[in-house]
């Protein structure tokens, strides 16, 4: 054996001279842990690392043991990388086995802290291993709780969770909605046969595969189809599929979730498979949201490694992965191989290794008498086969240096003879195959144990789902092809399409002997004292740990998993779950199906936030609603407040003004002359129909029967529990026509409220609801000079005698047809001008042109809040919280108990608890020190010296500095407050202050209401 004949180039010592699907004419340079390496186009990061002889790709999270690449696909537990050349392009938790190599790729280990080769944690792990048994979190970290933060930092650092970029991701991501007749998951032999069959029948097909190329197992197999290399058949089928308009082929696409009603999510890797940063105009990744009429799961199977002593030493790999690296990537990841198997299929790995010109030390077969085509082939090559034996232990630290082989008893659970030691650098193992049933579990289907294949297969489902190939335990290529074809034919029939005959390629005929049910190789010592035998590499769960969990009383596999952390994290138990269950079952002396089943939840592999967010970030994160006058507000320096999706002016600071300065100025200007508010965001619902009036009487607590045309009225809306949830002014536009206004944030809810009662309770009422919020621009001019201002630009008569308080009229304002409502939320003379929204800005500007002489002052929501609070007007949602009825708010005048129809809320507000005299009631609060403003939310007590916890009597709901009154004002709830006028209430604050206030009438200004009636 000389290694020189097998090497190529200076560094890629494990690369074969020829063979594989890589392009040796395209050399790529990449950086791994700060060092430069070379690979080829067609490599994955994993195959390139193995080609370069990189053994260690991480450190285990609990014991800090060095770990190497174990697998070749999504099931890889160790090679979890941090990828990215710049801070902004960092992607955590990338499996090296799923990352295509590209020129300039920069990757690093995730959990090697601070360095993979010499890891401080190794020392800690050796010591800490003893204090880190399963249940370690619960036992060690529960007490003292104060230490938890320290532990957490330590564990998170050690756990290798990867890190998020600290800079903004420069790439774009997309989402696409897709619909199809047949969604095929997996493009191995079963998936490709299914796709071709469905496509030929004229179905709309989507076929997705996580690999960069279609073909699945056929890409890394030496099998022939129609007497030619299987990959030629793959090429032909892919070419043929490409000729169909209705077939969408998605390589590099992980189907990560299978949700209700045949809805699937696919993460497609686009430019991230060939560039650190997406070239201009391209997307890095795409999330496809697919609704499929039928789904065919052809997801294949993962080979199970066997569990034996020190089976995590780099160089221990899953058998089929070794074959994949040899056949697909032209990489032999070592020189001297020991293959351990419980089945015939894995013999292929020894054949591949031998045919690549390297040394197979021995095949260690747990069975006494293996027979079959592949066994014969090994014998023909002169490979040593040690039957009835197992590898019980591995020597070596950073790489395997040798193995201990021992004969096993018939059951395979005891060592039955003396140990032989052999030199080797690679141990490939196979305990059989586990169908990839993850997606089938996502929709709630319980998998079923199948003794024939020693694995779980998909359980019964309500989804329109078919399965084909290895997912069913049909592991041979011939069976996979046949099942793919027949599943697609079933789908075609169910879709009502016409079947087309499809010729399948001829497969090789091989005979195989029965596999042995073997998961855990015994050691001469009991498991607890034997060298560590790893079940779940990513979570450092050992066979001894699972046995301990069972002995400690955890009998359900779900409990064992939680106790040991088996199958947690980004791994989701792809390699280890079945082995773990088998060990638990044996410890509990029961069968695997008795021990439980294994359930998987979305997502199959980690999905980037970029793909989930798509374009819904930055300015597109949430829709924004602007009023017709928005540009004016921006030009005039308004600060904005979010009200639902609306951007509302909050206040308009002038140069050097503080917020309070601006509010004081806006408040005083409005009460002294005239202010203007953009009130367009108020919800507006047009209500028509001959029963509109009756309907209003049922949904509002007050009376509507006699409201004449041309009049407006304030209304309170309650739930069936009697609690206030919205309020607003509704105007009578015609005998059968009303305009309802709602709070800005409550509009959508109120509309649905009206509709649900109309459609489900009172469909006999003839009434129609139309949302017109956006149709009208609304501007409120308020203050003693508002009438003078309006008179300058209207043709209407707005005099006191012609247009009284709570009247509305149509007229022209600034030449534009308008509805003008004389209603007031400030207690001042006010006019609410409504014009068709497109004219809003024009009318608004006209008001300013004519308002200069009155110092017309724009004000925002904050001044609106202060002005209404000066008058004791409530804001639904601020002064109410779903637990207060109209009487609690002192609004008994807005409840018409005598209405003939039992309006919504009437019965509710009469319940025993709602008529208690000591309910919390809304009152005014005057601080004894007029300069002190109560914090909103402060809790009141009647005795500030009461022992803690003090009995609380209610909280402050609204509190402001009133420039007009030159003092603070507040409203809040006090138990039985309406009967406590003049009494004191105390507000002890977190900073130690206690603010004393007097309970008073909430109308602080103009209690007789004279100002609005001028």
């Amino acid at each position: 054996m000389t290694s020189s004949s097998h090497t190529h180039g200076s560094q890629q010592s494990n690369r074969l001279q020829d063979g594989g699907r890589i392009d040796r004419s395209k050399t790529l340079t990449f950086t791994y842990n700060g060092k430069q390496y070379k690979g080829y186009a067609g490599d994955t990061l994993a195959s390139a690392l193995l080609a370069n002889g990189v053994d260690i790709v991480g450190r285990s999270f609990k014991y800090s043991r060095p770990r190497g690449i174990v697998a070749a696909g999504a099931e890889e537990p160790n090679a979890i990388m941090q990828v990215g050349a710049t801070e902004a392009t960092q992607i955590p938790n990338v499996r090296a086995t799923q990352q295509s190599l590209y020129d300039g790729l920069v990757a690093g280990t995730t959990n090697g802290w601070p360095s993979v080769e010499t890891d401080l944690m190794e020392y800690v792990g050796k010591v800490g291993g003893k204090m880190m048994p399963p249940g370690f979190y619960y036992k060690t970290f529960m007490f003292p709780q104060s230490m938890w933060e320290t532990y957490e930092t330590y564990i998170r650092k050690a756990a290798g969770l990867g890190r998020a970029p600290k800079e903004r991701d420069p790439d774009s991501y997309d989402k696409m909605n897709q619909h199809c007749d047949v969604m095929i998951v997996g493009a191995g032999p079963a998936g490709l046969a299914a796709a071709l069959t469905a496509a030929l029948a004229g179905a709309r097909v989507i076929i997705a595969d996580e690999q960069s190329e279609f073909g699945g197992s056929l890409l890394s197999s030496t099998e022939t189809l129609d007497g030619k290399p299987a990959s030629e058949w793959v090429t032909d089928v892919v070419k043929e599929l490409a000729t169909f308009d209705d077939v969408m082929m998605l390589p590099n696409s992980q189907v990560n979730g299978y949700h209700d009603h045949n809805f699937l999510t696919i993460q497609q890797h686009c430019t991230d498979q060939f560039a650190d940063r997406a070239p201009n105009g391209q997307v890095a990744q795409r999330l496809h949201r697919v609704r499929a009429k039928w789904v065919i799961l052809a997801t294949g199977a993962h080979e199970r490694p066997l569990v034996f002593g020190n089976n995590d030493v780099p160089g221990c790999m899953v058998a089929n992965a070794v074959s994949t690296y040899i056949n697909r990537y032209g990489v032999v990841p070592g020189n001297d191989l020991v293959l351990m198997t419980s089945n015939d299929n894995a013999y292929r790995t020894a054949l591949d290794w031998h045919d690549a010109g390297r040394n197979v030390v021995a095949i260690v077969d747990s069975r006494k008498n293996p027979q079959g085509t592949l066994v014969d082939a090994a014998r023909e090559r002169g490979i040593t086969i040690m039957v009835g034996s197992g590898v019980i232990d591995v020597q070596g630290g950073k790489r395997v240096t040798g193995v201990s082989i021992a004969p096993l008893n018939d059951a395979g659970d005891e060592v039955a003879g003396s140990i032989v030691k052999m030199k080797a650098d690679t141990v490939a193992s196979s305990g059989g195959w586990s169908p990839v049933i993850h997606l089938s579990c996502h929709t709630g289907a319980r998998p079923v144990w199948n003794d024939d294949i020693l694995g779980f297969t998909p359980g019964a489902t309500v989804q329109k789902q078919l399965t084909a190939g290895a997912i069913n335990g049909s592991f041979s290529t011939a069976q996979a092809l046949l099942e793919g074809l027949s599943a697609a034919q079933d789908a075609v029939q169910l879709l009502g399409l016409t079947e087309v005959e499809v010729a399948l390629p001829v497969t090789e005929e091989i005979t195989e002997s029965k596999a042995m049910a073997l998961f855990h190789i015994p050691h001469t010592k009991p498991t607890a004292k034997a060298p560590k035998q790893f079940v779940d590499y990513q979570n450092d769960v050992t066979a001894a740990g699972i046995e301990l969990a069972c002995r400690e009383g955890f009998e359900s596999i779900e409990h064992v998993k939680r106790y040991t952390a088996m199958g947690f994290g980004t791994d989701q138990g792809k390699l280890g779950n079945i082995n773990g269950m088998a060990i638990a079952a044996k410890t509990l002396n029961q069968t695997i199906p008795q021990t439980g089943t294994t359930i998987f939840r979305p997502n199959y592999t980690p999905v980037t936030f970029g793909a989930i967010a798509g374009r819904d970030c930055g300015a597109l994160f949430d829709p924004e609603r602007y009023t017709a006058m928005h540009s004016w507000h921006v030009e005039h320096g308004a600060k904005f407040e979010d009200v639902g999706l609306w951007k509302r002016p909050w206040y308009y600071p002038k140069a050097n003004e503080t917020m309070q300065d601006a509010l004081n100025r806006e408040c005083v200007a409005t009460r002294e002359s005239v202010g203007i508010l953009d009130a367009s965001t108020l919800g507006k619902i047009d209500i028509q129909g001959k029963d509109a009036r009756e309907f209003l009487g049922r949904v509002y607590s007050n009376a509507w029967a006699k409201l004449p045309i041309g009049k407006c009225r304030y209304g309170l809306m309650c739930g069936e529990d009697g609690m206030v949830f919205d309020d607003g002014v509704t105007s009578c536009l015609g005998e059968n026509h009303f305009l309802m206004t709602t709070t800005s944030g409550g509009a959508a809810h109120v509309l649905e409220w009206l509709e649900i009662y109309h459609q489900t309770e009172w469909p006999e009422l003839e009434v129609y609801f139309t949302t017109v919020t956006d149709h009208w621009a609304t501007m409120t001019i308020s203050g003693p000079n508002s009438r003078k201002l309006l008179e300058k630009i209207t043709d209407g008569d707005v005099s006191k005698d012609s247009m009284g308080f709570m009247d509305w009229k149509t007229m022209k304002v600034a030449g534009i047809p308008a509805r003008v409502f004389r209603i007031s939320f400030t207690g001042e003379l006010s006019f609410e001008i409504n014009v068709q929204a497109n004219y809003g800005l024009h009318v608004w500007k006209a008001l300013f042109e004519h308002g200069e002489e009155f110092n017309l002052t724009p004000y925002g929501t904050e001044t609106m809040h202060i002005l209404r609070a000066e008058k004791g007007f409530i804001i639904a949602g601020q002064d109410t919280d779903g637990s207060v009825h109209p009487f609690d708010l002192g609004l008994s005048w807005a409840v018409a108990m005598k209405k003939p129809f039992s309006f919504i809320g009437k019965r509710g507000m009469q319940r025993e608890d709602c008529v208690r005299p000591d309910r919390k009631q809304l009152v005014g609060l005057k601080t004894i020190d007029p300069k002190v403003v109560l914090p909103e939310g402060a809790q009141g007590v009647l005795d500030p010296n009461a022992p803690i916890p003090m009995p609380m009597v209610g909280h402050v709901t609204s509190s402001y500095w009133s420039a007009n009154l030159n003092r603070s004002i507040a409203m809040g709830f006090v138990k039985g407050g309406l009967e406590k006028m003049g009494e004191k209430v105390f507000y002890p604050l977190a900073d130690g202050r206690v603010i004393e206030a007097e309970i008073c009438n909430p109308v602080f200004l103009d209690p007789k209401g004279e100002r609005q009636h001028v």
Partner: protein
Amino acid sequence: MFHIYCPHCCEYREEEEFHASGQAHIPRPLDPDACTDQEWGEYMYFRKNPRGIHHELWVHAAGCRKFFNITRDTQTYEIKEVYKIGEQPSVVANSDQ
């Protein structure tokens, strides 16, 4: 995400267009004032939480804005049927038969 057939639009639409409004077939008492506190409390607050067949009120909020009923299996999330307000379900739980 559900795929819901709106019996008014007569089309399947994505769940994003709909709102669920709770258990169906809870009529408002015709004479609320005659209800005891107990009866009113049951009307307002008491709802089923079945494992299996459940009748639900939904609204096609971003579509025709019509309310309708869905019979859904809370275990499998299968929608067994949709039917209009005023109609009765044809699929019912054994315990309700």
